[in-house]
């Protein structure tokens, strides 16, 4: 027997303190004779092992305390007589509260269902999705009898026709507005693209200049198709020169106060890097 076996035996002995009364009779637990033999073996082992002797003393104390604890009546754990009534009253309150909640939810559900039916009745005769008007289509073109007629109810043709015409007008106006407002940005982007292609592909710059729409480059075809055509674009270098001139004209030198305040952002001068220790001749060594 080793110390681990000794611990296991004491756990079995403490197990038997609670369940022995109920389970020994059914044969599920070790019999008292077997437990006594094991306890004797553990005691024999503990005589020669100081650690197990201490453990055995502690567990023996715990076993006696357990017996006293289980058999002692704990006055604080006696029940208040009103607890059962409180539980039963709580159960009745809970069930009646649930029923009350269902009863309260019933008119609300009926009202929601009525509103849903009303909305369905109102929306049912209207055309659900009118025909989408493409940007290139004619403004104010009245829809033909075949366009979108499958989704339209046949009992109110005049209303649906007027509604489709109004929708086509609104769509065309939206496209015009978008095209007008995006024209300056499109022109600037086109200029930047032209100058960039002239810088990157100087051999093809002539072709680009000859073809101002930029159709020589396959990638630009789609862009030029989208962007509005401008009559004349200045060359890229001239544009960059203009931008640079504007920037240099608007930038002023820092005042002395600002220079002192933001001096920590300045790049150190080259003289300091020249005097760095890396470039100094070694004072020692070969």
């Amino acid at each position, binding site marked *: 027997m080793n110390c681990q076996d000794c611990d296991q035996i004491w756990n079995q002995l403490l197990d038997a303190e609670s369940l022995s009364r109920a389970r020994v009779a059914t044969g599920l637990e070790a019999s008292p004779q077997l437990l006594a033999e094991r306890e004797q073996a553990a005691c024999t082992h503990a005589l020669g092992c100081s650690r197990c002797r201490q453990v055995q*003393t502690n567990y*023996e104390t715990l076993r*006696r305390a357990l017996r006293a604890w289980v058999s002692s009546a704990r006055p604080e754990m006696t029940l208040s007589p009103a607890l059962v009534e409180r539980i*039963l009253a709580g159960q009745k309150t*809970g069930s009646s509260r649930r029923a009350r909640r269902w009863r309260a939810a019933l008119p609300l559900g009926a009202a929601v269902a009525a509103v849903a039916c009303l909305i369905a009745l109102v929306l049912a005769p209207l055309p659900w999705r009118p025909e989408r008007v493409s940007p290139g289509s004619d403004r104010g073109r009245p829809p033909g009898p075949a366009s979108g007629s499958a989704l339209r109810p046949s009992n109110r043709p005049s209303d649906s026709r007027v509604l489709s015409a109004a929708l086509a007008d609104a769509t065309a106006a939206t496209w015009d507005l978008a095209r007008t407002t995006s024209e300056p940005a499109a022109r600037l982007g086109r200029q930047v693209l032209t100058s960039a292609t002239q810088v990157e592909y100087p051999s093809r710059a002539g072709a680009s200049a000859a073809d101002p729409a930029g159709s020589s480059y396959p990638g630009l075809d789609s862009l030029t198709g989208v962007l509005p055509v401008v009559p004349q674009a200045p060359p890229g270098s001239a544009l960059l020169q203009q931008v640079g001139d504007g920037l240099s004209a608007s930038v002023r030198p820092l005042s002395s106060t600002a220079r002192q305040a933001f001096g920590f952002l300045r790049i150190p001068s080259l003289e300091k890097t020249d005097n760095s220790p890396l470039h100094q001749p070694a004072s020692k060594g070969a």
Partner: protein
Amino acid sequence: MTMDDPTLVKAVRSGDPQATRLLVERFHGIVFGLCYRMLNHRQDAEDVTQETFLRALRAIFGFDSARPIRPWLLEIAANRCRTALALRMRRPKLAPVSAAEDHADPRPGVNDPDNLAGELERAVNRLRPEYRLVFSLYHEQNLSYEEIAQSLDRPVGTVKTWLHRARAELAEHLARRGVEC
């Protein structure tokens, strides 16, 4: 009227108010004992006991009547106790616990059985909640390892380990307090 547990469950399901009362009267002591052991507070234990029975009576129609009802009730109570303890942990603590409680008790007659029970009571209250729960279910409620594992939704090996550690801590605590037999 004497009624075994499965018959009692069937009567409760049929809506018999007397059966409901009988069920509560039969098991509320056990449930309250566990709740009081776990919470160490009478009012909290009564609240959790009431909540346990309300939940049990609400869920009685889904209960497998082939199972014993006592571990099922204790399982609900253990879950409610854990929830109550978690809620209590979030509350601010009122006062720090005195650190000078583990010294040997100088009073004479510690070997008196009443004092032994009191010392063990004090030691049990200092256990971790999981250890205290397993110790109480085993030694106080007389549940088996399998029933405890089922109640706590843990493996049987975990339950055995927790109970073994709880006993070791209790024995060490009693030795520190100078309790000897």
